[in-house]
């Protein structure tokens, strides 16, 4: 869904691409915040100066710089850019942490509370008072008041009130995080504990102040193209329906935008299916009571590594579609650099481990296309040597992996049965659920987990959900 946060992020990206292409990015960078928020015009926050300060940080994140790492507040954006562009180093700079929280943008949302609002009419029946299990509500001067020390946030009063007078407020980022990795620090500003963070990107989507930012490789990709490097666009299966037109037209658009070659990651997914199925059959032969879980969602793999160590051995060792796609590219041309294009924050962490050079989100790709005035629907379909098969293109949907493995195995072993479960979206309950499967309390032999409800197409950086 488009909102103010996505709008400003995309607008800045398009401006960066245009300024880069006109050769003026270095000189324009520091002017963008001022041009977007001229004095005497309306501001989104307290004043245009606060807005400008935050725009500077947004641009920093788009340059791939971590806002947390800032040492010199006086350092202009042009200096960050110069370091990047003229270092003469063509090894891709891969941010260690794909996310960064911008302190000045964070509004320090008040701690989660249940409060009574102006809607309260101090009624006679007082169902809130009667239904509160902790006797936390009193009516003072004709208005209900909740004692925060006693309140356990059960929400009984919320449902009881006929005037919808009682509401629960939350800290959106903390509420969204499935692993408790983002918390307000002693200054009341959100901070991510990267030891715990699984890069699911849920806080990035949840924060109404857009304080959680992605560290982008957009400018790195633009610069590499300009240096004349061979960059191959590997487009994730989730791209289907993200842009107007067909996936083959999107591939053409990528080629027009300056990629030396383009491919569907779904071709890699075909290889994942074949290997994962073989691996599954082998594991079952060794121990029919064990179970295997999928490895293509990097946020899920991060969750296991960081929070469910007892499950590590159950994670499939089969590489993800992105990794196979990279192999296909490298086999064709070892000197080519690979750019994964998808809807995912966590892929940035996987790319770092698996030697994929760059990751662009659909938004960032869109910004390059918009900046270069390339319309997907105006492009001829790319002459793919062979379209990926439909089960592979379906990988981005929840159940897609399960279906693909099932189809592959049934083809090989007639009558093959899969005792599968899908965890469709990681939240706070996921760990408990998964542990039940692991202990055998809820038997299963194939467990598919996707961090985003519905699958990758609803990823944190997808354009249409």
């Amino acid at each position: 869904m488009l909102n103010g946060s996505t709008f400003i992020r995309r607008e800045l990206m398009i401006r960066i691409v245009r300024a880069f292409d006109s050769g003026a990015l270095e000189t324009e960078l520091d002017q963008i915040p001022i041009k977007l928020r001229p004095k005497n015009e309306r501001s989104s926050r307290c004043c245009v100066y606060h807005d400008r300060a935050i725009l500077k940080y947004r641009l920093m994140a788009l340059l791939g710089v971590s806002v947390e790492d800032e040492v010199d507040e006086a350092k202009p954006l042009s200096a960050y850019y110069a370091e990047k562009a003229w270092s003469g180093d063509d090894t891709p700079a891969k941010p260690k942490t794909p996310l960064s929280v911008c302190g000045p943008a964070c509004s320090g949302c008040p701690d989660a509370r249940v409060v009574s609002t102006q809607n309260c009419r101090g009624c006679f029946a007082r169902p809130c008072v009667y239904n509160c299990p902790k006797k936390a509500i009193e009516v003072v001067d004709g208005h209900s008041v909740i004692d925060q020390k006693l309140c356990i946030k059960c929400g009984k009063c919320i449902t009881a009130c006929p005037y919808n007078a009682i509401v629960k407020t939350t800290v959106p980022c903390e509420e969204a995080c499935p692993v408790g990795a983002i918390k307000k620090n002693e200054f009341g500003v959100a901070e991510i504990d990267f030891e715990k963070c699984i890069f699911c990107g849920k806080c990035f989507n949840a924060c109404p102040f857009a304080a959680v930012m992605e560290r982008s490789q957009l400018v790195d990709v633009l610069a590499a193209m300009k240096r004349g490097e061979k960059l191959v666009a590997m487009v994730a299966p989730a791209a289907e329906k993200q842009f107007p037109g067909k996936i083959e037209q999107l591939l053409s658009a990528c080629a027009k935008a300056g990629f030396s070659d383009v491919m569907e990651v779904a071709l890699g997914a075909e290889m994942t299916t074949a290997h994962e199925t073989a691996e599954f059959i082998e594991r079952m032969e060794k121990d029919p009571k064990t179970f295997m879980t999928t490895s293509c969602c990097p946020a899920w793999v991060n969750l296991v590594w960081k929070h469910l160590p007892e499950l590590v051995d159950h994670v499939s060792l089969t590489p993800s579609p992105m990794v196979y796609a990279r192999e296909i590219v490298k086999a064709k041309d070892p000197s080519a650099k690979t750019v994964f294009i998808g809807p995912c924050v966590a892929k940035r962490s996987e790319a770092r481990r698996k030697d994929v050079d760059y990751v662009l989100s659909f938004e960032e790709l869109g910004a390059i296309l918009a900046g270069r005035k390339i319309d997907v629907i105006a492009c001829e379909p790319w002459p793919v040597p062979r379209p990926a098969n439909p089960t592979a293109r379906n990988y981005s949907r929840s159940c897609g992996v399960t279906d693909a493995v099932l189809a592959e195995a049934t083809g090989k072993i007639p009558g093959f049965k899969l005792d599968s479960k899908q965890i469709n979206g990681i939240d706070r309950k996921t760990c408990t659920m998964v542990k039940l499967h692991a202990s055998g309390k809820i038997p299963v032999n194939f467990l598919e987990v996707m961090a985003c409800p519905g699958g990758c197409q609803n990823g944190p950086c997808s354009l249409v959900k």
Partner: protein
Amino acid sequence: MESVKIEICCGTACYLLGAANMMNIEDQLPAEWRDKVDIEAKTCLELCERDNLGGAPYVRINGTEIMSQATPEKLLTRIGELIEGAA
């Protein structure tokens, strides 16, 4: 009465800045309006340059009228005015 002609810009800039939300506008039309509206997705209408992205996404109505910062709600209201007004 002539049907109302709606051209939604699906140029990448407009698409990213909000036209994506209007792709399914056809499904949001009340049944009685369906055959009175003719909706088309267009490539860049060449308006995004004019005010430096400020007005995207754009929709062109009946060939001449330009709606900037278009949203599904704004568009539906305008379509309603044109149909009911003409009725």
